């Protein structure tokens, strides 16, 4: 019984949140890795692209809610998501035309584009706050739990409850669908293959008659879609606050680099590595250890390695370790 309780507590506090957070990071890291692979720079504006896409979705959700339009048990945000994606696509294509294209035509070196993207970050950041404000915004509605802790306890008779939030289920399901669709697109379709060809060798892609501007356009559209989905899922699961997206940039880049920048499979694996490291290191293990250890060996402290306030330190340390010892990442990426 103690073992079961320990297992349920582990699932409830570590595994399920870890998988949900990992899916969000993976979606974010996929966007970063695509820009790195195809447009050849680290896009620091990715976090704020997520914020912008999520903001548009939040505004549309509020509009639908004011009309009384809902999806029943599912959050209305899912209905607003396509509009958010459309907005993000428009925004990124406009930014590309207005900013990045200038440097691309001149074949500016990647480091220049990295700094350019930092400038774009600040503008997005300001615009988001200007429109929706810097505070927390709530836009979740519908049914909160698929299984609540209380129901689970009543069902199983265990002391520990396992709660499974609707948002966690949506996050995981959406992430799986998006990842499958993306891989199918990159490996099976003509447009996807042309993106890989362009990533591999720009000049030869040109000699094969692949239109570089079209590849860039498709890339930005996919990146906008991924960023908005990741941003909305994170916002639904936690809460929408513009600044958190800027902070998310660190774990997202850590995920992409751990997996190997430019490698989509690596981005997904990296997302889960970072998410689980963060959750396991900042979780107070006392609850689980109490079930597992003999009474006289029970820990007196919380057995929490690091306070949750320092969760970003985890990504940062992992990032440093990877860059020092295995700069190409777990899967063979293109960096270094």
């Amino acid at each position, binding site marked *: 019984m103690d073992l079961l309780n320990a297992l349920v507590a582990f699932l409830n506090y570590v595994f399920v949140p870890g998988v949900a957070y990992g899916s969000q990071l993976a979606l974010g890291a996929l966007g970063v890795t695509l820009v790195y692979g195809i447009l050849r720079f680290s896009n620091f504006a990715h976090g704020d692209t997520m914020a912008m896409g999520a903001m548009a979705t939040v505004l549309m959700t509020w509009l639908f809610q004011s009309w009384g339009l809902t999806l029943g048990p599912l959050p209305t945000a899912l209905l607003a998501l396509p509009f958010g994606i459309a907005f993000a696509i428009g925004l990124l294509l406009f930014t590309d035309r207005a900013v990045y294209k200038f440097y691309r035509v001149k*074949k500016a070196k990647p480091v220049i584009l990295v700094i350019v993207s930092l400038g774009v970050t600040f503008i997005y950041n300001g615009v988001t706050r200007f429109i929706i404000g810097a505070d927390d915004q709530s836009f979740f509605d519908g049914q909160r739990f698929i299984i609540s802790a209380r129901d689970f306890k009543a069902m199983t008779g265990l002391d520990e409850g396992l709660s499974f939030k609707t948002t966690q289920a949506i996050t995981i399901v959406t992430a799986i669908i998006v990842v499958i669709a993306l891989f199918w697109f990159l490996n099976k379709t003509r447009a996807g293959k042309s993106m*890989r060809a362009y990533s*591999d060798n720009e000049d030869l892609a040109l000699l*094969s008659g692949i239109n570089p501007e079209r590849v860039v356009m498709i890339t930005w559209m996919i990146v906008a879609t991924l960023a908005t989905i990741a941003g909305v899922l994170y916002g639904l699961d936690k809460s929408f606050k513009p600044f958190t997206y800027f902070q998310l940039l660190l774990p997202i880049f850590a995920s992409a680099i751990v997996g190997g920048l430019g490698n989509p499979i690596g981005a997904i694996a990296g997302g889960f590595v970072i998410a689980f490291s963060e959750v396991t290191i900042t979780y107070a293990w006392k609850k689980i250890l109490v079930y597992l250890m003999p009474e006289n060996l029970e820990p007196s402290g919380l057995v929490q390695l690091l306070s949750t306030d320092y969760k970003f330190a985890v990504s940062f340390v992992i990032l440093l370790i990877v860059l020092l010892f295995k700069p190409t990442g777990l899967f063979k990426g293109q960096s*270094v």
Partner: protein
Amino acid sequence: MSDPYGDRGNKDVSIGNPKGMGSEIPQRKGKSHPAPGGPFLIGDGMTAGYGNGPDILHDCTIAVDRGEIAVIVGPNGAGKSTGMKAVFGMLDMRKGHVRLDGEDITDLSPQDRVAKGMGFVPQTSNIFTSMTVEENLEMGAFIRTDDFSDTMAQVYDLFPILKDKRNQAAGELSGGQRQQVAVGRALMTQPKVLMLDEPTAGVSPIVMDELFDRIIEVARTGIPILMVEQNARQALEIADKGYVLVQGANAYTGTGKELLADPEVRKSFLGG
């Protein structure tokens, strides 16, 4: 001269991905217009250079006619590859014209030239290393909307080894096999003219002979071939027309046999 968009002094490759990055190609949005007469493909009186840099080609002319193999030879730095790139529109043309099949294509972008029927195999980075052999060929046929499976079968007939390796990443192949992939990729568009920049660079003599045989085979199907070659003697032997370039200008022009017999050419470029 400082380059405001370069990365002088930057040694950090963890935030950027310069691998596979393209070169600066002049933006062209022009159209072709008829210019009848002359050889099938000709770069006529080309004066050209990279970006804002100095002229590399000086009034240089290279041409190839139907059913011919034309070979460009010359010492290192003579502008052989540059001449090919200029014909393909990857350089800033300051003077001169490029004509293909009775049309002036000087103002066309490289993509539009591919659509007009030009196939180009560059000297280096001429395959997609991370993609399979078959995907490389598919990318070659990118501009084709019709069924290209019979063209692919023809390429596999020409280079049987590629058929065995079709699901292998092209970057894992040997030098000779890579060159076959590169030529195969260019053939996938069913080009009206094929331009090869040192197709035998870095391969062993045996493989070189085989590649030459294949190139002659392609030429026999009626595709004119314009080729840059380091192995001047061997290349001139199979050439209908030869160009010797020195410092970006035409030094000697003639049939392959004439050039091989010319004592000046022999002394300067063929080692006596």
